[in-house]
């Protein structure tokens, strides 16, 4: 029977029992079969860091090639694979899995007072599929047949006629494979956020971090099918001989673009909204006050994703659509700016009216606000259709989206790494190298991306492996390349600092920042069971305004379920704990996709049946409810 007990009055033998119930198997097997959200978060973290390095190396090779006009560092075939893989890697294999897979997985249960996600085995499956899809698509690079038509792969260039090799097949299958992982994660977050919160945590007491991830999850759930359909059509056109995109047989080349951008625009909000969640976690802690206009910010986070579904054709202003259609999309683009401006001023006024503590995490958030506003202002310029038609497909656009993606997604990721480092490792990072790493990265990224605005206006188009001298582009390109290497230095310092801090820094204790949310109430690092006592929540800032009591769940792998809006206790559920099936299923799916890649459709069918059998075996274990 669940017992209600005051916090911090838990007897030692209860803690030991909880530890024994929840501990992972030792060694490699423990990591392979884990369903613990913290371990899965860490697996995502390290894997995405490796992929970030890959994407970064791709970028630096490109920048080296472009440092001077008419360079011969790499030829067009290699360059085309580099820029395509750079975009694919950074978007699908770094930002999304780092924010959702690493930060989301580790922190959401802790922030809502839960012991794990709603579907722990499916959570593990998301990771193993992600890893398999990353290996799948990177195999193409090592084989020299990486996708080479950009991350957006317009047809007819991506069709069999103009791209006969395996490159685009790797793209289609890799993207579909990866999207399974993201869809499962999105569903996971939605159900967990609605169902697994601590009793008393009604929606208006939920941390803004969770609102942000909820918005991003809805975005992923409803946007990914458009991309999946698009890539399915392309795969069929290329390998079965269908004519979705073939204008000679009734198809449409623009169909690809429409479906791609119906996914693609919400995707960019999915990239940055979780990072907004990180920023809105750091700001209250580092101003030691509640966020200004909390309800407006929560609504804005949801609205920006929602409105973002209606603006896609602003990526297609030059294709020759009628003016009335363009004007409609420009109006929607104008509307989508408002939720972002609400958030920017809420953050700024929180910093101004609070008393900010400018340690490394907040420096990254300050940098984030600067970069996001810069990129957002050029984004507002795209409301003006004639101007967009002048600069679309030039370096001006590259500048815009890198200020947004690097500035508004990566800066909060770096800030978040520092902010939660004490919680995850139990150590307090070294502050001075942290601040230096921020300044190096800030200067480097501005030097790297700001000149791109100028060369774009001077006529330099995108995706060119070289350019002639004498058009006024040379000096800017050289500056950008230097900026790239300065950024590299900053990132290396950041990672080195975190590694060194892990080895040598002093202990942090459970709550070095006097943080507002629940994760600061448990130990650093948290125990396997996260919370000995499931907290009762009576405030949106539960560590600043704690409740008197909580729920003691100490028999087996127990967790609470609540009503979705009010957060009233609904039932106690028993969770599955450790399973070999997720990595096995991911392997089976990988074999399906490999078979499809090499054209062995019969084998793919057989492997598909094997996957269904694995699913049946998976469900032979039935967690019981009380």
């Amino acid at each position, binding site marked *: 029977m669940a017992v209600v007990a005051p916090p911090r009055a838990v007897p030692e033998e209860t803690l030991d029992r909880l530890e024994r119930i929840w501990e992972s198997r030792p060694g490699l097997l423990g990591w392979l079969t884990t369903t613990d959200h913290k371990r899965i978060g860490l697996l995502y973290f390290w894997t995405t860091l490796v992929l970030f390095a890959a994407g970064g190396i791709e970028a630096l090779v490109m920048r080296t090639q472009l440092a001077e006009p008419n360079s011969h560092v790499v030829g067009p075939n290699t360059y085309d694979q580099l820029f395509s893989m750079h975009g694919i890697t950074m978007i699908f294999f770094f930002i999304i899995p780092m924010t959702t897979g690493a930060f989301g997985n580790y922190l959401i249960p802790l922030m809502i007072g839960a012991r794990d996600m709603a579907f722990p085995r499916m959570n593990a499956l998301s990771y193993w599929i992600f890893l398999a899809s990353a290996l799948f698509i990177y195999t193409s690079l090592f084989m020299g047949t990486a996708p080479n038509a950009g991350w957006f792969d317009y047809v*007819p260039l991506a069709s069999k006629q103009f791209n006969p090799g395996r490159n685009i097949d790797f793209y289609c299958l890799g993207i579909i494979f990866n999207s399974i992982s993201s869809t499962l994660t999105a569903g996971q977050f939605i159900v967990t956020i609605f169902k697994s919160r601590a009793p008393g945590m009604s929606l208006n007491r939920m941390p803004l971090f969770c609102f942000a991830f909820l918005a991003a999850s809805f975005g992923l759930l409803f946007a990914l099918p458009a991309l999946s359909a698009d890539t399915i059509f392309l795969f069929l056109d290329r390998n079965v001989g269908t004519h979705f995109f073939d204008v000679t047989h009734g198809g449409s080349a623009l169909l690809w673009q429409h479906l791609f951008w119906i996914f693609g625009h919400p995707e960019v909000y999915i990239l940055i909204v979780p990072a907004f969640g990180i920023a809105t976690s750091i700001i209250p802690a580092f101003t030691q006050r509640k966020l200004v206009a909390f309800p407006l910010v929560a609504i804005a986070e949801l609205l920006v994703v929602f409105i973002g579904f209606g603006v896609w054709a602003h990526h297609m202003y030059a294709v*020759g659509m009628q003016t009335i259609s363009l004007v409609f999309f420009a109006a929607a683009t104008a509307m989508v700016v408002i939720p972002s401006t609400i*958030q920017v001023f809420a953050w700024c006024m929180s910093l101004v009216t609070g008393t900010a503590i400018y340690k490394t995490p907040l420096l990254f958030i300050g940098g984030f*606000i600067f970069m996001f506003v810069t990129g957002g202002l050029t984004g507002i310029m795209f*409301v003006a259709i004639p101007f967009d038609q002048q600069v679309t497909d030039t370096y001006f656009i590259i500048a815009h989206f890198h200020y947004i993606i690097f500035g508004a997604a990566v800066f909060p990721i770096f800030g978040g790494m520092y902010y939660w480092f004490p919680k995850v490792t139990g150590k307090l990072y070294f502050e001075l190298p942290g601040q230096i790493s921020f300044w190096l990265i800030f200067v480097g990224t501005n030097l790297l991306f700001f000149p791109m605005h100028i060369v774009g206006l001077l006529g330099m188009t995108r995706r060119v492996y070289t350019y002639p001298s004498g*058009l006024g582009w040379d000096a800017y390109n050289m500056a950008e390349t230097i900026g790239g290497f300065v950024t590299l230095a900053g990132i290396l310092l950041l990672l080195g600092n975190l590694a060194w801090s892990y080895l040598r820094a002093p202990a942090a204790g459970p709550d070095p920042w006097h943080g507002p949310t629940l994760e600061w109430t448990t130990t650093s690092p948290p125990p396997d069971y996260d919370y000995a006592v499931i907290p009762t929540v009576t405030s949106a800032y539960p560590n*600043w305004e704690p409740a008197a009591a909580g729920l003691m769940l100490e028999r087996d792998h127990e967790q609470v379920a609540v009503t979705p809006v009010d957060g009233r206790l609904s039932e106690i559920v028993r969770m599955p704990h450790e399973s070999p099936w997720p990595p096995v299923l991911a392997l089976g799916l990988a074999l399906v996709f490999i078979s499809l890649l090499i054209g062995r459709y019969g084998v793919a069918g057989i492997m598909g049946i094997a996957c269904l059998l694995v699913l049946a075996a998976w469900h032979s274990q039935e967690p019981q409810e009380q």
Partner: protein
Amino acid sequence: MVLASGCREQQDSLAPKSHQARDIASLFWWMMGGAWIGLALVVALLFWSWKRRSRRGFGADTEGPKPGEKQGWYTVVGLGIAMPIVVISTLFVISDLFVIKTTQAPAGTTTKLTVQVTGHQWWWEIRYPGTSAVTANELHIPVRTPVRIELTTADVIHSFWVPQLNRKVDAIPDKTNVLELDADAVGRYRGQCAEFCGLEHAHMSMYVVAEPRADFDRWLAAESKPAHTPSGSHALAGQRIFLDGACSSCHTIRGTSASGYVGPDLTHLASRSTIGALTIPNDPSDMMEWIRHSQYVKPGNKMPDIKLPGSQLREVVAYLEGLK
């Protein structure tokens, strides 16, 4: 390797040479002014927060409402909702209801001349309907005349962009998109393909040459004629090699038996200033290099390296350089 870079050549959208490009450039300068103001405002707020920063650190009193809570709300609603609505609506109305009228596709009746441009991997085919003129990568128009460009593609999506004259428009299969060019001043304007179209997308540029009406008429009349008969034994021999060899299966020279559509029409090749869509200048030594080593000059382009002994090569070049 000398490349096609004239002194002070530019592709600069902020050096407009037509009323459309000027309208877009003005729009940009206004927006940039507004953007700097907006950025300055946010930077000022960040700086102010730094000035007011805490010396006390963590664990300070965190409960209850803080001073400035109400001002914070007013600022968020005022600067975060009201101000952007006003500014962005103004921008929307000016650019998307007014400026767009000058940059959008022209109605059929307002233009005085039509030019058909077809994008290929990786060159531009240019035709003048109503005449038999066909050329590549260099488009002549009469100055101060609204010209209708009808754009399509023979293969993948390309994009026609001459920044000093107007915004870009994509070349989509099975679709004809229309753009208006109306140059203010005589001159040679550089443009480039602006939609990734494969290996040599980086080397698919073009010139738009705006000239006085009389000069344009003369040029068009010359381009419409079939090829000059070669004069001199060198050039004659070169013609023989060209027509008997693989060249004539990919290239057309009107008035001869050479009839191929993979590569550009070469009837008046010598009247053009560059080879390979502005990749290298059009002079004898570069021409020889192109024929012999086009795969080095423009790797991946559809013309193979043509291995001819030196004497034959010089004869072919002599022939081609005579095709004025």
